């Protein structure tokens, strides 16, 4: 097997020297601009310490949107119920901490991911037999069921009021989550996001990720090339659910409380809007979308506290009309039209 063949031997034109082959061979390589979001995140830490609370919220939103992108953007699983996993992760952390069972943050986060992954696996085994609107409705049902379960088990979950003042142990026993300063929360969330991002990035460029795009592009054809489609979808959905669970766990830890809003349809819709705004199926759409959405919410809401969602609605209409692939897709189209030509000529 000639895996890892030596790149570019100029002697004869082999099939691998073809431009199309070179695109596929080099697609996973890191580009210089991929460091920008991380540099910006580090920059924010030093430049705007007053905004670290907002920054932490942003990082959690990015992670959640990234999880959704894996399922919706890459595998084409139409879901409006991803808060089911966000909430499962949040309540896993919340219940363990509130009842004094386990407060160590990193392992709690792993448990949050595992719990959400199990929910994703079990629900995925059932709902991924369906497609389209049926699938969409079933994802909402799953979320609603879990929300009601959390509501009804109020002896443990605090019901509608949730669980306040979660005691989260310091990270590595040293770095405390302070309610006044968000430095620890921010750095912690940033590192968690980085690790999860590297996992997602590896997955989407892997042969597995390629088969997911195949499923998104033409499910019936994937059956006809011998792909175990449902197994692939369930695996993808499970990983996506686990990542959403980690996002939820992170939310609970950095806010030091959980409530039913983590299971909300509102939250599931928001993450979908974030992803569509940024551009789905392109990895960085989660980043761009989350920044755009939260910045709008944060600043528009300050100017027009009552009507800021009108601005958001207008923006979504514009995106739907003129930029189906979100802000990133629009950027790519413009680059291809103006910048790319200049670079090529």
């Amino acid at each position: 097997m000639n895996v890892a063949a030596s790149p570019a031997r100029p002697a004869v034109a082999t099939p691998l020297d073809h431009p199309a082959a070179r695109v596929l061979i080099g697609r996973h390589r890191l580009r210089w601009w991929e460091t920008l979001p991380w540099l910006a995140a580090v920059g924010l830490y030093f430049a705007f310490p007053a905004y670290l609370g907002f920054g932490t919220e942003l990082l959690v939103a990015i992670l959640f949107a990234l999880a959704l992108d894996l399922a919706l953007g890459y595998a084409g699983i139409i879901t409006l119920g991803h808060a089911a996993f966000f909430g499962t992760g949040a309540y896993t952390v919340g219940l363990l901490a509130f009842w004094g069972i386990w407060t160590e943050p990193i392992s709690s986060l792993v448990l949050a991911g595992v719990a959400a992954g199990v929910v994703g696996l079990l629900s995925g085994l059932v709902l991924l037999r369906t497609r389209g609107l049926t699938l969409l409705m079933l994802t909402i049902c799953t979320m609603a069921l879990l929300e009601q379960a959390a509501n009804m088990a109020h002896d443990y979950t605090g019901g509608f009021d949730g669980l306040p003042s979660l005691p989260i142990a310091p990270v590595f026993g040293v770095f405390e989550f302070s309610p006044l300063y968000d430095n620890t929360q921010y750095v912690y969330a940033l590192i968690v996001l980085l690790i999860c991002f590297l996992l997602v990035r590896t997955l989407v460029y892997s042969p597995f990720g390629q088969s997911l795009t195949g499923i998104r592009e033409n499910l019936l054809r994937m059956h006809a090339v011998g792909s175990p489609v449902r197994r692939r979808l369930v695996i993808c959905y499970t990983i996506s659910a686990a990542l959403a669970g980690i996002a939820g766990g992170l939310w609970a830890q950095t806010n030091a409380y959980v409530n039913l809003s983590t299971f909300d349809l509102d939250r599931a819709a928001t993450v979908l809007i974030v992803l569509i705004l940024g551009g789905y199926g392109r990895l960085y759409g989660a980043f761009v979308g989350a920044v755009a959405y939260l910045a709008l919410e944060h600043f528009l809401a300050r100017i027009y506290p009552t009507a800021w969602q009108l601005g958001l609605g207008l923006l979504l209409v514009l995106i739907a009309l003129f930029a189906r692939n979100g802000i990133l897709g629009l950027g790519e189209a413009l680059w291809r039209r103006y910048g790319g030509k200049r670079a090529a000529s």
Partner: protein
Amino acid sequence: MAALRRQTGGVVTETRLETQALSRDFGALRAVQKIDFKLDAGARHALIGPNGAGKTTFVNLLTGVLTPTQGRVLLGGRDITAKAQAERVKLGIARTFQINRLFRGLSVLENVCIAVAERVGAAASMFYPAGRRTDVIAESMHLLETLRLEDQARHRVSELPYGRQRLVELAIAIGLKPGVLLLDEPAAGVPSAESHIILDALERLPEHIAVLIIEHDMDVVFRFARRVTVMVSGAIFAEGTPKEIEANPEVRAVYLGQAGHG
């Protein structure tokens, strides 16, 4: 295996794919009725018949898209009636579709790579980049060269003219290295000025593959097929060499006649 071989004119041929009393009903409609059919190794076999004769249903039964109401499907003597579609692909049955089913947003090369990666068992791997499987990419690229699609390899499938898209449809199936290839109207919808590229590609298919082609275009059938089966109303109406079929007055009446009078 001896049971599978039969003498035809002194030449030993091996049956690759066989159906025994294969039937499929859709409610009261008997779409396919008790079909006994044999496809030999290396066959170039055409399946023709008027619209609604059940040809595509028959192919769907062979590939496992549909389960038969009755009867069996055997591949190399082995009963595969209960096998799912994806499993049959692994056993060497590939098909193309009457209406393109392509990964339209992806490049031509990637379309083929997806099929090849699936065949060689790479597609479940999660933790290394697909670009590192240069064996998959090189094989896919080589296949595109044999189909003379290398100049389009970079393009998105959706940007290609329809005739070339039909070639990609074929390339994906060939990339699975099938023993049995089922072609559902490979030239359908291709403008006649372009149809030669499909025919050329068909004629260059590896000799050992058993090919069953559904086709309406009689020029394609008579140029490509060495054996022809005529289906009418879900049943086999006649079978023979292209010359026999062409000369058969009953076939002319039910099928060829329509074209002749039209």
